């Protein structure tokens, strides 16, 4: 591993430990560059949960190093309290069951998620 890759890996680990809720995504919350990232952002925003976001697109090494740390191959990846919660599928399942609100420690705002699809 080169020094640069080491630095990227350290920076990712630091970001994960410094932010209670952090989402690694394609694009930004205002301009997601992929439907899976867009849905995950929409779930967090629907719960009005504050989160940090990192766009992985500017440098392919960010994704490589992130996946090496998390042992998770796809983007987005949501971390809460330093732990990987999951990608889009798991986050959406947890949003619909109310589990996501619980994990994030926020009020579950939607009465029936099934009747109110996000996107």
């Amino acid at each position: 591993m080169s020094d640069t890759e080491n630095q990227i890996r350290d920076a990712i680990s630091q970001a994960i430990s410094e932010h209670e809720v952090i989402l690694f995504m394609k694009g930004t919350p205002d301009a997601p560059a992929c439907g899976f990232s867009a849905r995950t952002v929409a779930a967090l925003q629907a719960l009005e949960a504050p989160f940090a976001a990192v766009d992985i697109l500017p440098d392919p090494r960010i994704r490589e190093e992130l996946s090496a740390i998390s042992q998770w191959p796809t983007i987005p990846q949501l971390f809460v309290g330093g732990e990987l919660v999951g990608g889009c599928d798991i986050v959406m399942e947890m949003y619909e069951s109310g589990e996501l609100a619980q994990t994030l420690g926020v009020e579950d705002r939607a009465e029936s998620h099934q009747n109110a699809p996000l996107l």
Partner: protein
Amino acid sequence: MESVLSLLHMPTAEEIKQRIEAAIPGARAEVEDWTGGGDHFKATVTAAAFAGRSRIEQHRLVYEVFGTEIGGPIHALSLKTQSPQTHSPQ
């Protein structure tokens, strides 16, 4: 050479189903080509091997079947996993 060829190969929904069922003992998989483009798939996998594992671990078991093909020829593999006993998200 072989690994290069496997990265260029685009699997079908049927092939993905067979590979999941072959790799995870007792697994039943339903796989659909989500967009019709042959690179975004959606799979529902039921396996006794998932019992007692977190959702993250369940999804990892399925992702491991495809290794670096995920994000390569398979752009996306959307997963829903369950063990036969629970049959619904806990």
